[in-house]
Every structure is written in C-alpha cells, then in structure tokens.
C-alpha cells in the first residue's frame, strides 16, 4: 500500500501565542515546534498499516527549511521518504494545490492528514485535496481499517459517530483514537538521517485570501472567588 501523510510544523500545544511586525508575523521566540498533533495520529496509523500489510510511507510538508527537523522526526517515527515543498504556507488553497500536484500521478492508495492544523485550524486542506483529485475525503476520522481496496472508518459527528465505507484511493482527516502517538526510537532516529528528503519548488502561487493582521483576544478580568459554603451566591 502506498501511503502519503501530510504533516504540519506547528507551535507546541503549550506555547504562548504572540505576534511581531505590526501583528503581521507569528513570534517564534522561545517556541518549540512539533508535528501537528492530529498529523501525528495520521502518521501513527500509517505506520501501523504499513506494519500490517507492507508498502511505503511518504511524508509531505509545505514549509520553509526550518521545518526539516520536524520532517526528520516523522522519518524517525517510520516514514520512508519525505517531500518538502519549499514555500511558506500562506493559505489553505495554496497548500492544497501543492499537495494535489504532488499526489496526482503518484498512485497513493491513502492520503492521511490531520483533522485540522493547530495553527490555522482550518479543517480545510483534506477536503480541498480530495476535490482537486476527484477522490473521496472523509473527516474527522476516529478509526480506519483497510480490507483489500475497501476502507472502513468511523467518523465523529455531533453527539456520536457514524461508520463510513469507501474504496481507495481517498483522503482522510484523522484524529484520536485512530492510533497511539509513536515516539521515535534510537534506530529510527539514526536511520532518519539518511532517508531521502526531497525539496521541490511550489507549482503555483495562487491564494484565495490574504492576511490583514493578527489579533489577540482581550485579557480576561480577574476571577471572583466564592466561598465554598456560600455557593448560593453563584446562583444570584
């Protein structure tokens, strides 16, 4: 099975968010970058699927050279090769175009993504790529099993889940509990250094939105503490 996993390079979930340059740029000072947590689930499931039935895993990131340590981590977790599209991911249409271009003649059976990136939180790229390639897109996917050329998934819906069945190829936006996050072991880390990481240039510069400025939410006022013996005050 030929698998593509699209990963983002995003601030660690505990990061404090701030902006510089007149609120035009994300302030990276002191920020740790990680593989997007949902992308990490997608990658973990891809590794399991490869263990079960063989095949290969390619990871793809649209980003500048600063994302390479994150890509190497994905290789250490179990991807076989990587592609970096050398461009700042300015908007979701731009990213989707790059992914679709890479995937269109590559014969992937499954394209796994995260349900959303945790920086832009669009939940948009998988559906766009599915539509561009003319194949199904399913999200948010909680479990995914392959049987021949069929894929059985459970998709989270408000208040529950539904079972979805489709034929490959398809795109899935993954979330827990699809697999346990994998931590790279020593052997993985060593071999990741020599696995291929191909850098390609973007195919188009088309976008559909431009940033005006970033903004932080207003600061929260001080908490009002209520005595545990006087909970009725809260009711009023």
């Amino acid at each position, binding site marked *: 099975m030929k698998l593509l996993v699209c990963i983002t390079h995003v601030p660690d*979930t*505990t990061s404090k*968010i701030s902006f510089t340059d007149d609120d035009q740029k994300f302030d990276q000072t002191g920020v740790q970058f990680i593989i997007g*947590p*949902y992308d990490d689930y997608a990658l973990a499931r891809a590794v399991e699927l490869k263990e079960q039935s063989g095949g290969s895993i390619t990871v793809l990131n649209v980003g500048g050279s600063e994302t390479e340590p994150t890509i190497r981590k994905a290789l250490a977790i179990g991807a076989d090769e990587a592609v970096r599209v050398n461009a700042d991911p300015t908007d979701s*249409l731009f990213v*989707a175009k790059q992914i679709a271009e890479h995937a269109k003649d590559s014969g992937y059976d499954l394209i796994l993504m995260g349900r959303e990136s*945790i*920086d*832009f*939180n*669009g*939940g*948009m*790229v*998988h*559906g*766009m790529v599915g*539509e561009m390639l003319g194949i*199904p897109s*399913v*999200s948010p996917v*909680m479990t995914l099993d392959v049987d021949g050329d069929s894929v059985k998934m459970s*998709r*989270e*819906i*408000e*208040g*529950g*889940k*539904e*079972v*979805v*069945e*489709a034929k490959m190829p*398809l795109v899935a936006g993954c979330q827990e*509990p699809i697999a346990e996050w994998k931590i790279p072991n020593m052997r993985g880390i060593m071999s990741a250094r020599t696995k291929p990481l191909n850098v390609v240039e973007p195919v188009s510069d088309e*976008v*559909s*939105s*431009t*940033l*005006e*400025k*970033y*903004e*932080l*939410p207003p600061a*929260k006022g001080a*908490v*009002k*503490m*209520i*005595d*545990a013996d006087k*909970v*009725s005050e*809260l*009711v*009023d």
Partner: protein
Amino acid sequence: MATLVFVESAEGKIKKTSLEAVVYAAAIGGDVIAIALGTEVDDSELAGLGNYGAIKVLKVSDDRLNQGVIQAYANVLNQAMTSMGSDILVLANSSLGTPVSARVAIKQDASLVTNVTELPDTSNGFKVKRSIYTGKAFANVELTKARKVIAIKKNAAEIKEIGGSAAVEEFSPELTDSDFEVAITGVDKATGDILLPEAEIVVSGGRGLKGPENWGMIEDLAQELEAATGCSKPVSDIGWRPHHEHVGQTGVKVSPTLYIAVGISGAIQHLAGVNSSKYIVVVNKDEEAPFFKAADYGIAGDAFDVIPKLTEALKAAR
C-alpha cells in the same frame, strides 16, 4: 446578489448554529436563500427561516440525503449556488459543514474561510475575522476571490427574529450513484441529549471526580441547568465518559454562555477548547489550580461537597 445558506437540522429542528448562519447571511446584504437537504424537516419548520431573514428555502427531498454524505452534499450545494447565481455560501462549522465547505469552495473556485467569529467588514473588500491557534488568537483576512464560502463558529452572529415566513421550494439537483459511493453504514448517536457544540451551558468534569460512578452529581447539575455534559481528555481516554464529550485542543471546542468546570486542572490544552465561553465557573479543591486564572467565578472547594449544594441552591431558586 443572493447568498445561499446551508442549514442543518437535528431531530427535525433547524440547528441554532444554522439559524445564526441565516442571520449572518442577512447581515451581508442581498437576498438570503436557505437550503435544507433530506426529508427529515417539515415545511413549516423550513418556512420559519423567514423569521431570521431568508426569503426562500430550497428543499432537496431525497431520502439518500438524510445521511450526511460529504461528496453528495458538496455536489448539491455547488449546483444550488450556480443555479441561484449566489456568490456566497454561508454555513455553520460542524462535523458535516466544514468538510463539505472545502469541496464546494474548490468546485466554485471560491475563497474558503472557516471558524469565522464575527460579521464581515465589507466597507473595503470583504474581510472576516477567524479564530486561529485553537482560540488563542484571531486572524483578520481578506477573501480575494469573487465567490466565497464562509463557515461560521457558534455566536458569530446574534440571533434576531424579524417575523415573516419564507417560501419553500423544491430543488432537484442531478445526483448519480457515484455521489453516494462513500456509504454511511451505521450511526451511533446519543439522542435526546443536548449536543455539546450547540449547548448554551456546559458542565464538565475532570479527573478530580475520581471515577465514572461519581458522574451522577454532574448529570444532576446539568439537568437542573438544561446543560450538556463534557469532560477532560484523560477522563475519556480511561473510558469514564464517551469520546465525543471530550473538550479541548484535541476534542470538542465549545463556546457556551456558561462553562462550569469541576475537578479539571485547567491545562492549556483543555483551555483551548473552552476559551470562547462567555462565562467560566471553576470548582477545584486546589486554590492554586491554573484554571482559576481563566475563570470568571471560582469556588475553591471539594466538588463532592460543592456540586450537590449548588444543585440544591438552583432548585431552591426556581
């Protein structure tokens, strides 16, 4: 110019977030045409969308659309936009709306924006504000394509009732079997419960509650407040509560008027899911718990003591 609004329903009723989408569309200006898919909502409910600003409601009476098949829905909305000459599609972010919106945007060569939190600024171009970094910040973006697909977050528009009723018309898009290639073969859904993403009040419990057997008092309080119940991630990981109740960065993002957190420490990943709540009440026996910093009201006390008392006080106040 007409704006199309995709409305969703639950148990025969149009969802509140979809009503907000209609109000949002009305605020853009121009005619508002709503569209409902499937046969589970009756005409009077649909006509009632006039009260929120729709002049017309398209209904697509096809049983196959009673299930939310992403590709088929995208195809229907695409055809409706074209046939109504709409440049803008508005819908609510949801487990169905968001994945559908992405496909429609590509079909229409439209700008797509999700997680929109406020009405647009159309004084110079078309600008919207959207939530990013899991609610920790916002981005103001300009949508540069002629056509636009806009998915709004709960509370992006304030519901106004203007009276009136909308004309309900049948819309018959072309659908083929291939639109239903992706099959929904089972649904497992809590019924009757108040849905977490829609709820006005949420009562959430964390590991501080010690075990699933102690959720009775959370449910009692929730029932008294007509609230939905939620939980922290470890609670759903250990299986004390179902996964769809898990609130936070990797779970459901809620934006209720009131969020009550009981025995939850307030880890940043949990806060990411609740920081757009209007008021936050925190009950924690550790007065140093980080959650208090994000709260409007705090009670430093033992949940097993405070929660039953609170429920009693609410009963008494009724």
